[in-house]
């Protein structure tokens, strides 16, 4: 799964969890995960859905968990793009193992 495909997957699940209303900007790489349309429960659901779809489609079991998850500055959960990067690194790590 490429970085772009990962971003598209995140955006798709994002929209399913919190459908856009009228003037909401479309979700893209720079969309922040916390503080916008998603509440903390949505973010947890996003992570669960991502793990499941990646396991099913890529046959790679990753755990999207990080001690910095709640940090505003260093969290891989800052934006759609940073989460995609983090997922890419987890998948690469899992393939190497």
């Amino acid at each position: 799964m490429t970085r772009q495909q990962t971003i598209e997957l995140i955006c798709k699940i994002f929209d399913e969890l919190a459908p856009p209303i009228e003037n909401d900007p479309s979700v893209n790489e720079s969309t922040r995960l916390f503080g916008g349309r998603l509440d903390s429960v949505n973010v947890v659901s996003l992570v669960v859905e991502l793990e499941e779809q990646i396991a099913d489609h890529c046959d790679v079991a990753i755990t999207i968990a990080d001690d910095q998850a709640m940090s505003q500055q260093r969290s891989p959960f800052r934006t759609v793009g940073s989460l995609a990067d983090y997922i890419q690194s987890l998948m690469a790590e899992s393939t190497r193992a």
Partner: protein
Amino acid sequence: MPKGEQRVGLVTGSRKGLGKFIAQQLVACGYAVFGCSRLPADWTLEGYHHLEADVSNEQQVKEAIAQIRRSHGRLDVVVNNAGIASLNHFLMVPASTIDKVMATNFRGAWLVSREAAKLMMKARYGRIINVTTVAVPMRIRGEALYAASKAAVETMTRILAHEVGEFGITVNAVGPTPIDTDLIRKVPAASIQTIIDGLAIKRKGQPKDVMNVIDFLIRPESDYVTGQVIYLGGA
């Protein structure tokens, strides 16, 4: 019952003892039951599927839950029963034993609960039952490590209840008294008697005493009971 409608349970440490009893009882209640242990089970039962998995191994836990998701698409009940005991004066406990006991009793319950909750939250329904011990409130000499590992499980139980409550998942714990299983086989009779003497009801526990509490906690009507630790015997 068509696939998808049957309730599904997972019991860890189900190869023998209390876990085996709980797994068999859940099957009798109509559940499709998965059990797991590090070694294969030497018993079979229609409706029971044994998985070889070490609960302290993150990848093995993920694979076990993924297997349940793929075959049944749901998980209604988890009983975190897998546990190992340690009886020793705290001055005599090697560091390696601390790691081993905490890995199975605490890390294992954490990982299984975490992965199970991911499946449960999609259905907005789930019951997680952690097995603790009366050794926590009774402060028994020689059981510092075992009790500490279970105290960690109890704290986890209480906080998880808050973190997953909005997904329809309840998290509770049951604390048995000594039951005649391998877990207490090496515990001196005098130590067991000391525990029994400290109980309100002075006898050893039986697996059915634990199952009675589990029966109550997994009922759909018990959806308002969460974050609780229920000790048996009046400890």
